[in-house]
């Protein structure tokens, strides 16, 4: 009998371990983002109303500085690091060309956002905060997603 441990037989396969810790990293990233959504009040219905009525700079400063930071830090990451933690070349898939779907879909989402004051991120975050009526918003958001999937071929894109 040998006591030598063979990777993948006596221990968890290296790739599985890596996949699990990899997924955990995304859970932590989500936790981070959820905390920021609450602390910056982007998940506040009040702030969304204030924004759509142009009654405060808060949300505009928030989104503006987020975009500026994302732009600079993503450019730096691509220029000086270039590869992900897992060694893939960093690339951003370009969005499909066109404008109809962006205008029509964007307007539809915007109307929904202005009512209950939630975009998809805050739906999850507010649920986590124990605001259970968000389950109703989530259920109908899933229905809306399904309806798009069912009728997409009949919509202009």
């Amino acid at each position, binding site marked *: 009998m040998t006591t030598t441990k063979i990777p993948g037989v006596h221990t968890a396969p290296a790739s599985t371990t890596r996949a699990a810790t990899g*997924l955990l990293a995304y*859970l932590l*990233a*989500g*936790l981070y*983002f*959820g905390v*920021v*959504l609450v*602390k*910056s*009040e*982007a*998940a506040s*219905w*009040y702030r969304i*109303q204030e924004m759509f*009525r142009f009654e405060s700079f808060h949300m505009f*400063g928030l989104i503006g500085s987020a975009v*500026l930071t*994302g732009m600079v830090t993503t450019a730096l*990451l691509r220029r000086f*690091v270039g590869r*992900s933690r897992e060694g*893939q070349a*960093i690339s*951003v898939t*370009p*969005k499909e060309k066109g*404008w109809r779907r962006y205008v029509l*879909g*964007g*307007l539809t*989402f*915007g109307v*929904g956002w*202005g*009512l*209950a004051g939630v975009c*998809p*991120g*805050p739906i999850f*975050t*507010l*649920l*986590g*905060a124990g*605001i259970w*009526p968000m389950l*109703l*918003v989530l259920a*109908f*958001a899933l*229905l*809306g*997603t*399904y*309806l*798009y999937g069912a009728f*997409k071929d009949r919509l202009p894109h």
Partner: protein
Amino acid sequence: MTDLLDFLRSPWPWYVGGPLIGLTVPLLLWLGNKSFGISSNLRHACAILLPESAKPGFFRYDWKKERWNLMFAGGLLLGGLVAGGLLANPEPTRLSAAAVQSVQDLGVTVRPGLVPAELTDLSNPGVWLLLAFSGLLVGFGTRYGGGCTSGHAITGLSTLQGPSLIATISFFGGGILSANFLLPLFMAVIR
């Protein structure tokens, strides 16, 4: 100790929160070359939940490859639990005077919490209508437009994508219309 707790419970100004939101884009690219976008999870959830026989082609793909994003959504729940539950701000959102007036005109009282009590009172049928209609449009619109605030306004604009600029302007067009004209109609029913 109370000072520390007060600090942890207080909200952050935009110039702290904004850059931390923006950093999510390079963070996910570095973690695994992932493009930040939350609404895709609604599609993945449909792909998981729908029975095979009733599944439109749009939901027939290998959602297991997108598990990272479902984990991210799980993290959002935890983030809400920590920041909105355990360390909830005991003060109401510090709105501008103009916004306080507008919100009161809608029939909503400014109280602590992220969502007003008037909009979570499920004994009121008007609230069901508002939340259901809003959710339906968010789900349909984000998939039709190919993304939400995170995918288009944050990721798309950060990576200089024209379609995301069109989408973001449209989000605001729709939101301005609904917050100023449609919501008052709903609130007239709810009150």
